[in-house]
């Protein structure tokens, strides 16, 4: 019969033996079941040994001798424990070792994580206030266009109808049906006051914003409008500069664009052209300073203005005097607002993030806190490795990275696409941006901005060239044989250069008209063949073919 003892049978043993067995089993410090087995086995051994003792003293003596033979109880306990551990089945060994290893890893990770959890950021520099001061540059409040622009947005009426205008398939009123034209007329009439305010706004030479930093709750899917700022919380995970006026500016530009087209359709071409310049002036107020978002909105609005002028030139009879006036004013505007993008504001926002996500040791350095992991790590693998090896970049390294990145980015922005270094600089910047997960996520957008800026610059130069060609044709009755004639005959001070070829734009006379194009993204002169989209339809700014600016409607 097989049976395991549930309890020791120590009865009948001398007290010294009982005590010895207890000491051994207690010092074993192992599983209770195993201790009981050893206890039972030792008890049995002692019982056998003292069994032949006649008197209690005899039994006591025999037990004492046996205890001496067993030796040190603690040593016996240790030897028994080690041996019993070896008896464990393999699966139990694996489980125990696995649990021990997991425990050690958890403990180590917990210890490593303490560094991320302990400490608070020190907000010494108000980068947002710094950005506000920088864009204002100490100018008088009366020189700021922003209050007028905000007022113009406030005065906007029939916003739903403005949305309808944007959704119309035709852009020229002559191609619209009567109800659509009525919408254009209504938008123009009902928003006359807002447009007057816009015209007043662009007379102000500068635009600046008193920026605010806010915590934004995650936006619901599909919602792009700014949300109400939450209370400032030093423990936030992410912050950004609030720009609640941007959607309003976009709507204002859309309504104004509709009114320009309507005005031209009604016969006031000069007024419409002037308003096109107002729209571009509005756009340029937003460009070249402040935050990235503002500057992008500015570039987008300017693109609308640049689209309007050729449309009006194509659809309407424009007197030569108007052409000269528009050309002169555009040259002035472009000279005044040469820079489209300034990345200093964006750099300040990232430095503000570093300040909030790193501790401060008082000497310009510090370590990353848990909020800063997406900024400090390249990806999750790097994050884990850095966590285990204490390998996160410190505050100084992160600041250097951001400074370097934005310097490189500015260089990439200033490198004309026709230059051999263009692609190399963009690639280098993108590679550097991958050093941070968060910056890496923003990098593609920033990289697209480089293309966007150079397209806009190309559009500007092409528009000036186009106006000069038309003036030449208006006055001489024939289009210039080459673009060089524009300079020679005084229609342009200098020949605008195509940023994508490093030479003058592509040009040739075509019957009664002319063809004006940039070689485009592929840097190859395709003879004025417009690039196409994936469906094979002509498309402006396509990666293939040329970008044709005149005649309009090539897409």
């Amino acid at each position, binding site marked *: *019969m*097989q*049976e*395991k*003892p549930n309890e020791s*049978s120590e009865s009948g043993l001398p007290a010294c033996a009982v005590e010895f067995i207890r000491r051994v089993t207690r010092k074993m410090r192992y599983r209770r079941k195993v201790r009981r*087995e*050893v206890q*039972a*086995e*030792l008890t*049995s*051994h002692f*019982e*056998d*040994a003292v069994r032949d003792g006649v008197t209690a003293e005899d039994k006591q003596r025999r037990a004492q001798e*046996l205890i001496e*033979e*067993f*030796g*040190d109880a603690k*040593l*016996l306990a240790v*030897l*028994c424990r*080690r*041996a*019993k551990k*070896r*008896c464990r089945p393999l699966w139990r060994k694996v489980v125990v070792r696995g649990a021990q290893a997991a425990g050690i890893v958890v403990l180590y990770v917990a210890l490593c994580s303490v560094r991320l959890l302990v400490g608070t950021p020190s907000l010494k520099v108000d980068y947002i206030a710094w950005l506000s001061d920088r864009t204002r540059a100490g100018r008088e409040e009366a020189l700021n266009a922003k209050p007028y622009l905000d007022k113009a947005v406030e005065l906007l009426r029939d916003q739903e109808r403005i949305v309808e205008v944007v959704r119309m398939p035709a852009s020229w009123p002559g191609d619209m049906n009567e109800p659509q034209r009525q919408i254009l007329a209504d938008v123009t009439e009902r928003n006359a006051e807002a447009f007057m305010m816009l015209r007043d706004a662009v007379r102000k030479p500068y635009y600046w914003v008193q920026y605010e930093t806010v915590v934004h709750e995650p936006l619901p899917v599909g919602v792009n409008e700014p949300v109400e700022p939450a209370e400032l919380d030093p423990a936030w995970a992410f912050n950004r500069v609030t720009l609640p006026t941007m959607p309003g500016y976009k709507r204002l530009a859309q309504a104004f664009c509709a009114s320009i087209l309507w005005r031209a359709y009604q016969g006031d071409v000069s007024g419409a052209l002037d308003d096109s310049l107002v729209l571009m002036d509005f756009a340029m107020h937003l460009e070249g300073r402040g935050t990235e978002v503002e500057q992008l909105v500015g570039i987008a609005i300017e693109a609308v203005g640049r689209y309007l002028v050729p449309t009006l030139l194509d659809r309407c009879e424009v007197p030569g005097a108007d052409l000269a006036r528009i050309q002169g004013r555009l040259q002035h505007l472009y000279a005044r607002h040469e820079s489209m993008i300034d990345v200093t504001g964006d750099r300040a926002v990232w430095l503000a993030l570093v300040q909030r996500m790193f501790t401060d040791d008082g000497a310009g350095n510090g370590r990353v806190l848990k909020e800063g992991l997406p900024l400090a790590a390249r990806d999750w693998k790097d994050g884990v490795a850095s966590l285990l090896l204490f390998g996160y970049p410190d505050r100084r390294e992160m600041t250097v990275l951001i400074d370097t990145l934005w310097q490189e980015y500015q260089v990439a922005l200033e490198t004309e696409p026709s230059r051999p270094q263009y692609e190399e600089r963009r690639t280098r910047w993108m590679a550097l941006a991958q050093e941070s997960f968060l910056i890496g996520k923003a990098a593609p957008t920033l990289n697209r901005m480089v293309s966007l800026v150079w397209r806009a610059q190309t559009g500007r130069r092409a528009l000036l060239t186009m106006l000069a060609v038309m003036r030449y044709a208006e006055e001489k009755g024939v289009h210039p044989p080459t673009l060089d004639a524009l300079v020679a005959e005084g229609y342009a001070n200098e020949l605008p250069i195509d940023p994508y070829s490093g030479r003058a734009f592509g040009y040739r006379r075509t019957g009664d008209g002319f063809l004006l194009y940039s070689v485009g993204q592929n840097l190859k002169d395709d003879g004025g063949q417009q690039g196409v989209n994936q469906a094979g339809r002509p498309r402006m700014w396509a990666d293939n073919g040329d970008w044709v600016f005149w005649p309009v409607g090539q897409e």
Partner: protein
Amino acid sequence: MKFESQLLKGIAPVVVLEILSRGPMYGYELSQAIEQRSGEILTLGKGTLYPLLYNLEAKKLVKGKWETTESGRHRRYYSITGKGQEGLARQKAQLQGLAKGLDLLFGGALKAAL
């Protein structure tokens, strides 16, 4: 004559396996048997006995089994396993080789002494 404990330590597992190869035994019985069958020359320290048995069990050379005797005593009987038999045979051969080597080394004095 009692052997030095260090000398006995190396051959203790072989001794235990050899005794158990003759039949299952419990701890006390085993220690007694070692003494009796070795003419009281070999004595295994009691403090060594049980750790040694547990180690042999871990190596699957012996197998322990709780049994209740007719008198109602709980005892753990140890018996040699197949793997233990193989190990014993191997170690016995080695010991015989060792004895032969020592005999040659001591010029027959060892054999004469034994």
